[in-house]
C-alpha cells in the first residue's frame, strides 16, 4: 500500500515536471511568441492562425460595456470589432483586472488592451501603443457643498486626495504636490470622497461625466478643475506588428468618417483625436 502510494506520488511529480518541460520545448519551436522588449513580434500572423483577436477590457461606459443582450458595446468595443473584421478574424472580449493589464499582455492571455487607456509613461514603457484616438483630462472631484471653499488649484493642497493606484490621476497628484492615498480604482476613489474618508478625488473627465452629479450614484459630488489633458490609446505587446496595423486602420476609419460615426453613437465625438 505504502509503496504503491509512493509510486503514485512520484509519478505525479514527474508528470508535473515534464509538463513544465514540454511547455519549454514547444515555445522554442514557436519562437515567435517570445516577448523580449526589443524583439519584434509577429502578432498579426499568430492572431490570424488562431482566428481571433483577444481584447482585454473592463466594464467602462461609454468605452466598453454590455448591452441588454449581454454583448459588449461602446466606442472601444465597436472599433475593436471593426478592426478585427478588417484583419479577417473574430473579436473576443475578456474582462481583466486593470492592475494586471501588462501581465495579461505579456503572458499572452490577451492580444491588446483597448479600454480608454491613458497613455502614461508607465503604459508607454510597458506596451507598444497605438497613436492617441481620444483626448481626455484628469479632473478634481469635490463634495458639492465644499466647492466654494476652494477657488483655485493651490487651495487644494490642504486636502487629502484619493486616486487610482498607478493611474494618470496619481501622476497629477504627485506633480501638483497633493497629499493622496492610492486606492484600487477610480470608483473606489469616488467612494472615498462620498464616505468622507478622503476630501477629494482625481479621475478621468469621461468617467466623471457618467458617474458624478445629479441623476448618478453620487449626486452630492461634483467636478471642478481639470489638471491636465491626456490621450487614450490602445496597447499591444512590446514589438508587436499589430500596432502599425491599428494606426493604419485608425487613419482609414478617421478619413472615411466611420470613426466619427461610432464616436457620435456613444457621445465621445468631442474627445476624438485627429488621425494624421
Amino acid at each position, binding site marked *: 500500500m505504502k509503496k504503491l502510494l509512493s509510486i503514485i506520488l512520484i509519478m505525479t511529480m514527474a508528470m508535473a515536471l515534464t509538463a513544465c518541460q514540454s511547455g519549454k520545448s514547444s515555445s522554442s519551436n514557436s519562437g515567435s511568441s517570445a516577448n523580449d522588449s526589443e524583439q519584434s513580434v509577429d502578432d498579426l500572423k499568430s492572431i490570424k492562425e488562431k482566428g481571433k483577436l483577444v481584447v482585454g477590457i473592463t466594464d467602462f461606459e461609454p468605452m466598453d460595456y*454590455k448591452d441588454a443582450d449581454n454583448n459588449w458595446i461602446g466606442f472601444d468595443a465597436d472599433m475593436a470589432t471593426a478592426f478585427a473584421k478588417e484583419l479577417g478574424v473574430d473579436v473576443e472580449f475578456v474582462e481583466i483586472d486593470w492592475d494586471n493589464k501588462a501581465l495579461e499582455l505579456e503572458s499572452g492571455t490577451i492580444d491588446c488592451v483597448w479600454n480608454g487607456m491613458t497613455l502614461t509613461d508607465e503604459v508607454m514603457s510597458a506596451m507598444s501603443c497605438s497613436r492617441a484616438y481620444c483626448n481626455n483630462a484628469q479632473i478634481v472631484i469635490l463634495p458639492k457643498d465644499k466647492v466654494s471653499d476652494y477657488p483655485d488649484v493651490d487651495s487644494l493642497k490642504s486636502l487629502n486626495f484619493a486616486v487610482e493606484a498607478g493611474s494618470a490621476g496619481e501622476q497629477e497628484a504627485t506633480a501638483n504636490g497633493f497629499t493622496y492615498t492610492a486606492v484600487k*480604482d477610480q470608483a473606489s476613489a469616488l*467612494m472615498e470622497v462620498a464616505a468622507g474618508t478622503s476630501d477629494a478625488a482625481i479621475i478621468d473627465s469621461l468617467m466623471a461625466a457618467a458617474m458624478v452629479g445629479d441623476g448618478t450614484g453620487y449626486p452630492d459630488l461634483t467636478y471642478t478643475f481639470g489638471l491636465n489633458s491626456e490621450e487614450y490609446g490602445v496597447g499591444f505587446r512590446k514589438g508587436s506588428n499589430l500596432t502599425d496595423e491599428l494606426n493604419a486602420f485608425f487613419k482609414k476609419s478617421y478619413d472615411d468618417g466611420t470613426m466619427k460615426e461610432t464616436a457620435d453613437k456613444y457621445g465621445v465625438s468631442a474627445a476624438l483625436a485627429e488621425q494624421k
Partner: protein
Amino acid sequence: MMDRYIEQFPVVINALNIGFLQTLKLFLVTLIGALPLGLIISFGSRSKFIPLKLLVRFIIWVVRGTPLMIQLLIIYYFPGLVFHNNIWGGQETGRFIATSVAFIVNYSCYFSEIFRGGIAGIPKGQDEAGLVLGLTKSEIFFKVKLLQMVKSILPPISNEILTLVKDTSLARIIALQEVIWAGQAFMKGSQGISGEIWPLFFTAIYYLIFNGILTVLLGKLEKKLEYFK
C-alpha cells in the same frame, strides 16, 4: 431615493447571483479536489521513504509559506511569461481552471497537515490489534482508523472549509468573476448602474448565509459521528 433602489435591486441581485454561482463552483471543485489529494499528500509526508517525505514536506512548506494570491498569479501568468506557452487561454474557463488548480494545491496542503495530525492521533494499539486479527495494513486504515480520524479532524476541517468560502474572493486577482467582482462592477458602472457602493457590501450577506448553512450541516455531521466515543 427609494425608487432608485427598487429599480436597481433586481439587476444587482441577478448579477450577484451569477457571481455567487462562480464562487460556489470554485468552492465545490476545490473541496472535491483537495480533500482526497490532501489525504494522499498526508501519506507522502508520513512516508518511510525519506526522499519522498522530504520532498512532500518541502512542497507543503512552500505552499503554506506563500500567499494564495501570489500562487494564483504564478499559476495563471507564469506559463505564458516564463515558458511562452499560455496554457490557460484568456477566457473565463481558462481562468476558472487555473484558479481551481491553485486552490486545490493550496488547500490540499493545509488539509494534509490536518489529516497527518488525525492519523497520528490514533493509538498504536489499534494497529497492533488489527495485525493480530490478521487484517492487512490498508484494511486497518480504511476499516478501522479512517472514520475515527474523520471524527477527530472534523472541527479543524470545518474551520478550513469556512475559510475556503471566503478565500474564493482572492480569485478576482486573475479576473475570475466571482461575487465580489460582480458587486464591484456597479461601482465603476455596469448594466446602466454606475457609482453604486451598496452591491459590494451586499455580497457579505451571500457569504454569511452560505457559511451559516455550512455551519449547520457540519454541526449535524459532527453529531452523527458522536457514537465513536
